[in-house]
């Protein structure tokens, strides 16, 4: 298993800081427990040495942070990007959302990040989580050690990882990985195989839990509009609350549609959802349909590529042919 250590990242960051290549480092800072790391901007070697952490809980996608970060100083910011983050990084660049010149991107290998919610389901009262062999040991307050396999602890998005290859970086730590043959559409296929009634019941069960906290939107690298339509009082759909079951459906359909063709499937939406709604299944449906209808397309694979929804051919299929053809011919 290829892992990058905390010390290697601190070393790299310190080097780049002292060489003047960057003037700050976007990283993680430890919290109260072993799992609650917080994104943090470090500006000197002492702070890095003291507070910088890196472990399997550092799953946040930092690409979107660059929009805000690039406006803060004239100097460059160092950002560490996992393979999946590099796709969002490219996509945001395609959309001219940050200044590439102000970023120094270091690609870091990733063997999957842990989903604390999954661990909580298996272990109550977590004292610490440590990597052991190919899995994890969770020390608990009352039940002693709980051993979990990687599959039991890793986030769903990591278990169905689409690529270990970095599509953008200034420098790479460790070895380059490859685009994987992922099973990420299997859940979508299962849903497609259901009857409409079953699908409706499924989504009603999922979406009715939505509390409209907007975390999915606020974390999403593709949701980088300066003013969201759902925040705009003049849009007629500005609503802070799920005032009726319709509202949550509209919010999630429209949000998924707005990012369709631009969503890189980074999975942040599902990670942050406090109600555990599998929001990525909406985005993946669009990705799968796009692949099936208009040919394979991976958002963020290269900078400047034309997203499928701002493109067309005269031979595109008709909506009447599209519906139900969701299975597409996935190459």
């Amino acid at each position: 298993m290829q892992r990058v250590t905390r010390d290697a990242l601190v070393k790299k960051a310190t080097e780049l800081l002292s060489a003047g290549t960057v003037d700050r480092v976007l990283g993680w800072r430890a919290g109260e427990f072993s799992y609650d790391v917080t994104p943090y901007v470090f500006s000197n070697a002492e702070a890095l040495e003291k507070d910088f952490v890196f472990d399997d809980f550092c799953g946040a996608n930092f690409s979107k942070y660059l929009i805000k970060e690039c406006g803060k100083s004239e100097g460059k910011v160092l950002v560490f990007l996992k393979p999946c983050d590099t796709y969002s990084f490219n996509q945001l660049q395609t959309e001219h959302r940050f200044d590439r010149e102000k970023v120094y991107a270091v690609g870091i290998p990733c063997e999957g990040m842990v989903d604390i919610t999954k661990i909580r389901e298996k272990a109550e009262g977590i004292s610490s989580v440590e990597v052991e062999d190919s899995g994890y040991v969770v020390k608990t307050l009352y039940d002693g050690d709980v051993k979990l396999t990687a599959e039991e602890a890793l986030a769903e998005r990591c278990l169905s990882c689409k690529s270990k290859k970095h599509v953008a970086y200034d420098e790479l730590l460790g070895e380059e990985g490859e685009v994987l043959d992922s099973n990420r559409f299997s859940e979508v296929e299962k849903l497609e195989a259901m009857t409409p009634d079953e699908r409706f019941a499924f989504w009603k069960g999922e979406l009715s839990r939505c509390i409209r906290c907007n975390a999915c939107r606020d974390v999403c690298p593709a949701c980088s509009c300066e003013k969201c339509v759902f925040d705009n009082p003049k849009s007629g759909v500005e609503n802070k609350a799920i005032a009726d079951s319709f509202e949550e459906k509209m919010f999630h359909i429209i949000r998924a549609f707005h990012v369709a063709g631009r969503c890189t499937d980074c999975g942040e939406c599902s990670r942050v959802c406090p109600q555990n709604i599998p929001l990525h299944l909406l985005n993946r449906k669009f990705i799968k349909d796009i692949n099936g209808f208009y040919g394979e397309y991976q958002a963020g694979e290269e900078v400047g590529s034309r997203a499928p929804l701002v493109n067309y051919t005269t031979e595109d299929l008709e909506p009447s042919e599209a519906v139900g053809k969701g299975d597409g011919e996935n190459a």
Partner: protein
Amino acid sequence: MRKISLDSLAAFFEAVSANMPLYLPVDGKEGASYKKWEPGATYSKALNTNKSAKDFFFPQVENMMAFKTEGKNIEVLDIREDVGPFAIFGVRACDAKSFSILDRVFLSDPVDSFYKNRRDNAVIITVACSRPLETCFCKAFGIDAAAPGGDVECVMAEGNVYLEAKTEKGEAFLKQVEAATEAADAKAAEAEQAKIRERIEKLPLASLSTDRFGGGKTKEYFDSPLWEELSANCLGCGTCTFVCPTCQCYDIKDYNTGKGVQRFRCWDSCMYSDFTKMAHGNIRNSQKERFRQRFMHKLVYFPENNDEIFGCVGCGRCLAKCPISMNIVKVMKTLGGAERE
């Protein structure tokens, strides 16, 4: 004191349900959440529900009134519904305490009738926390998770649930379901309570202190440079406020149904950019200001206006749910200057 064996909880729930609707934590995909009891429903083993229990009295959305307009005329229709008695089982000490904090807002003059009508009708059956979690810090706010209060207080010990009425309402409630319970002495429950208190002392956040916060500290903290650092990566979502048992800010909005206008109230979040936006501008333009508002409100402003009672109950939901793992504990420790050194 009365007791029921854990095995016959279902019979107890059924007996309660015969008198009034009963809500209790049930496991779901999101974790535990309060559901109406139906035959077959099982009481969740989770320590706490995903969302807090404030929804019972202050739901996320409620229609307050309707308007009928005809030409230049308006008619205001009171569409409030009558609320009947209901029972909530499984409320933890933190959530039980949160009701008294919400009471200070909604039951202070002028009384909010929407809230009061529900509050008056609820029987709150609390359960002591046999296994408090690492995210729990209710002790910091003077809450005793072993004696959670409410109308009826439950302690689970030795395969039984021990019930004790704490209010007149609770006594009447236990009387109603007397047949489903049996008399018991307090020994086993008290022994368990003592054990719970020991466990709480050993929790990782047991040493968290509120000493440095409270009313009158606005000047001390408001201009602290630490707010910048603490809020720097806040996403500005409303997760913390919506899972919080004491966050009670709301918005009032109108919805045109095509057949008239309905005015509803919904949860709002001080973390949202338009929270204080008005026609001529916004007084909290940066996330730092909004972030500061939330924590200053809980740690300084609320105690200042409410006899030094803090606006937090240490339930730990925001610790578990914040997308960037920023939370009130980190804020307290950073501002308080402790432990981070």
